[in-house]
């Protein structure tokens, strides 16, 4: 796959809007061809994309190769699951002597879950960002695994088997999310908001510092920038958004188990970002569709589809590193022309 010249910003924006429109039209279309089951699958893709976009912020823009991102997805998911569990059982959650009532209300639970994920990311980030390179990869993986084992050991919440929920979260007391299509649109809306917000973020002062640190950390420090705290902030923010993806995932499946933060899911998120094109924010959305599609197709061919997916992955890394986004839309934005002009 040779990289092509980048498309003009206007064409690129047009393509992105077209993509959004296509996603918006997907449910009625699927209903029309009588395949409503695929709405569920597409919802799962959107949720995966949301987690991958959050990883792209720290990976593609911040240069932080986190191999533990699924941990934050899992934390968000478990906050949702545990609160719902207590709401159902009617007993409060005892935390350090504090009684937290069970809850099912999205307007409270979702921000709360994001906050808890952010705190987890902050703590892991503080430790992991003391080093870089290979260390960072292994340390994020290890801490994610620690959370995995921790949740496995929590017998009160099903241990290995996880928790089954009795329905999705309520929104302002209504069961809005129970409807398959509504839930799809909620996921799509949140994904669009996050992509747009991140788009702004990466061009802000904060975003430029983050990208500068990826390109040349030493230079940034010599300029007077304490890069670690910006990286940590980005890592925490990405953790919060990953937590939101976890919330959605648990609502979608009405089930949560430690598998959600299994290390292979962290690997999968990396694959999605690379497949789609890292440092593009939109690429990971493409990547999510392609990976899930590929899995769906391969799984139809053979039960042992990973024996094919694995080598495909190796080939992609060796020969198609620009990712789908680079292939379709052109290479990642470098200097962005002269940095002026419309975008």
């Amino acid at each position: 796959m040779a990289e092509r010249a980048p498309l003009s910003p206007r064409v690129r924006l047009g393509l992105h809007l077209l993509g959004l429109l296509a996603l918006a039209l997907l449910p009625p279309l699927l209903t029309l061809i009588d395949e409503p089951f695929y709405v569920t699958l597409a919802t799962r893709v959107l949720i995966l994309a949301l987690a991958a976009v959050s990883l792209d912020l720290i990976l593609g823009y911040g240069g932080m190769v986190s191999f533990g991102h699924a941990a934050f997805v899992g934390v968000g998911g478990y906050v949702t699951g545990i609160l719902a569990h207590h709401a159902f059982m009617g007993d409060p959650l005892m935390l350090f002597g504090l009684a937290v009532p069970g809850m099912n209300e999205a307007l409270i639970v979702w921000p709360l879950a994001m906050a808890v994920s952010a705190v987890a990311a902050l703590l892991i980030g503080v430790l992991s960002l003391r080093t870089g390179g290979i260390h960072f990869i292994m340390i994020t993986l290890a801490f994610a695994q620690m959370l995995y084992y921790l949740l496995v050991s929590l017998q009160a919440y099903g241990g290995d088997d996880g928790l089954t929920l009795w329905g999705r979260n309520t929104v302002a007391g209504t069961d809005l999310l129970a409807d398959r299509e509504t839930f799809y649109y909620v996921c799509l809306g949140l994904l669009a908001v996050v992509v747009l917000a991140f788009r702004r973020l990466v061009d802000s002062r904060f975003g430029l510092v983050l990208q500068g640190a990826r390109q040349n950390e030493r230079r940034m420090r010599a300029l007077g920038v304490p890069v670690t705290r910006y990286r940590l902030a980005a890592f925490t923010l990405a953790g919060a958004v990953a937590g939101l993806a976890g919330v959605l995932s648990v609502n979608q499946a009405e089930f949560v188990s430690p598998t959600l933060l299994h290390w292979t899911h962290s690997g999968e998120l990396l694959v999605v970002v690379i497949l789609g094109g890292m440092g593009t924010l939109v690429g990971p959305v493409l990547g999510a569709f392609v990976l899930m599609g590929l899995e769906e197709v391969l799984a139809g061919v053979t039960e042992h589809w990973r024996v094919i997916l694995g080598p495909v992955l190796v080939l992609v890394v060796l020969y198609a590193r620009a990712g789908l986004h680079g292939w379709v839309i052109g290479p990642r934005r470098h200097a962005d022309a002269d940095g002026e002009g419309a975008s």
Partner: protein
Amino acid sequence: MRAPGPLLEVEGLSKAFGGVTASDALSFTVMPGEVHALIGPNGAGKTTAVAQIAGELKPDDGRIRLDGREISHLPVHRRALLGLGRSFQITSVLPDFSVLDNVALAVQAHAGHSFRLIRNARRDARLRDPARAMLTRVGLAAVAGRAAGALSHGEKRKLELAMALAGHPRLLLLDEPMAGMGGEDSARMVEVLQGLKGTVAMLLVEHDMDVVFALADRITVLDGGRVLATGDPEAVRADPAVIAAYLGEEGVACQPC
């Protein structure tokens, strides 16, 4: 106001790498506004000294003061914000960003924290205007929109200088700013530095003696991590120890360049 003391005081700086003593109880000062050349043969410990002043290397012993304030224990970025600007011996720019982005980031670094998440920094006149002015000053205005990684070597060196200057430093640490530049570029760079003379103090590491004698107010000669001599150019040129250890051979060897 207190009497104008030295801007930079290096006192007893020592650093060893395994068996190699790269800095051996170095002491010297840089006065405000002065161009102070740090010279010495390859491996004399010039880069090591600069790296310790900038804060990248932790000295084994010794003190560094900037304007009377001890900075020995501050991290790199704090020292930069206190007024140390830096260009590296091996060029160091942000390759994916445009030339203008590079300098604008330098301006931004000195304009307070960067926890500003929404406004597009590439359209922020408070960053772009000074950056553009700086590019004009070093002669890079024409390539402002190019990716820094695509610049020629000479252009990158100029960009480094522009980034260092953008923070309005009080002391520029220049590690061989002309290394690897062609004759013309190099002459242009000397001109630029000459133009800066008096407005900002410089600690200039340089091998080319013509450049050193053209720019320096004072010279410190290093050899084997030790200060061999320090003083004004005439005195250093006449110093028998320097002639014997350094200028003697190097002067001859360097004649063609």
